């Protein structure tokens, strides 16, 4: 393949991944790396660098839309970003030292978890303020728009959430992904934040977390313009189209199919890593 053909293929694949990622809420970035490495034979480090850049594009684009609707909580996001950015710097530094096979196996496991998370039933219970004194002190409790006016919610287990966010940031830096699934785990499950608030706030945080590892990737030469260009443009175009589609009944089927595809990629990734093929 010459550069033009290669770029067109990469751009098309990225657009499809971005489209399905936005439609299913799984995020496009997470499937680009396995596709680039397993199908197109790209070195894992280049794939991780290009994906990280595209993650910033989709998360910022989506956050711009969400923030206006008033679901995302800037205070929670900013407080937890201390943990995710430190985690991302540590993770990106580890990534430059860890062997590709180890990274591939970790990647596969995170991918499996994300696939499972995307098809899981979401509970939507709301805690009242006073659940955690630290949340009151930092004024993290807030409201979100409901059908009959604002709904108030409280934030629980702030320290546990903060710790999990460090882990989410580290995975993001290590693998060049947004690790939205882990961020939602921390906010939704540990801190008891309503689902809509945790998904939109997580999206808001992904760009900042990714920017923290981007500097390290850049200085290590992981971000190569010829590859990052088609990936970033493809994912951005695909996810913008995907976000415009209405969430209907078909999406549930699509989400399941996409989940199975992601799980298959995850297993292939773990296998390739274990066999030392990457």
């Amino acid at each position, binding site marked *: 393949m010459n550069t033009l053909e290669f770029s067109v293929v990469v751009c098309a694949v990225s657009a499809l991944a971005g489209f399905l990622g936005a439609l299913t809420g799984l995020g496009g970035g997470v499937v680009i790396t396995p596709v680039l490495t397993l199908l197109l034979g790209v070195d894992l480090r280049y794939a991780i660098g290009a994906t990280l850049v595209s993650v*910033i594009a989709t998360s910022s684009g989506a956050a711009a839309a969400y923030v206006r609707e008033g679901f995302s909580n800037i205070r929670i996001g900013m407080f937890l970003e201390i943990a995710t950015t430190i985690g991302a710097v540590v993770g990106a530094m580890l990534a430059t030292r860890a062997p590709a096979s180890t990274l591939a196996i970790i990647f596969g496991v995170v991918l499996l978890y994300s696939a499972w998370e995307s098809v899981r039933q979401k509970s939507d219970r709301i805690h009242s303020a006073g659940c955690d004194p630290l949340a009151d002190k930092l004024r993290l409790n807030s409201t979100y728009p409901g059908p009959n006016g604002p709904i108030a919610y409280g934030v629980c287990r702030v320290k546990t959430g903060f710790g999990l966010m460090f882990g989410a940031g580290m995975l993001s830096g290590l693998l060049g992904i947004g690790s939205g699934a882990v961020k939602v785990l921390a906010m939704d499950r540990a801190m008891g934040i309503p689902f809509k608030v945790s998904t939109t706030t997580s999206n808001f945080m992904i760009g900042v977390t990714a920017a923290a590892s981007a500097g390290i990737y850049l200085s290590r030469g992981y971000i190569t*313009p010829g590859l990052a260009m088609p990936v970033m443009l493809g994912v951005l175009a695909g996810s913008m189209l995907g976000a415009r589609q209405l969430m209907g009944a078909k999406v549930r089927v699509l989400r399941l199919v996409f989940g199975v595809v992601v799980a298959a990629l995850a297993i292939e990734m773990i296998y390739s890593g274990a066999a030392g093929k990457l």
Partner: protein
Amino acid sequence: MSRDPHDAQVEITIGNLLRWGVMISAGVVLASGIWYLVLNGSVPRDYRHFHSEAQDLRSVSGVLNGALHLSCPHVIQFGLLLLIATPVARVAFTVFAFMKERDWTFVWITLLVLAILLFSLTGLQRHI
């Protein structure tokens, strides 16, 4: 615990900042990407083997310098840097938003996040 109008204004400004950051960087990357393909489209290229990028594509100052001299890969890289700078600008703007609200705890929290981001982007991390 209602959202005060000031908060809503901040959210709208942040939304616009993010949208414009993404659009401008995508525009730069698209234009320079086409230029790159016109110049190099027929050359065989794959990314099977990792060899770290040239030194001047690996630092903010190197990229800016190359982009000023209209070197094509540097302009693409500059577009990508604009994208990376978008969330950083958002954090910087939030510092001022919390200052206006006289919420000093959050001014410090946001400054800390900004410091971590700059530590990574300025290349200070190379010394560790």
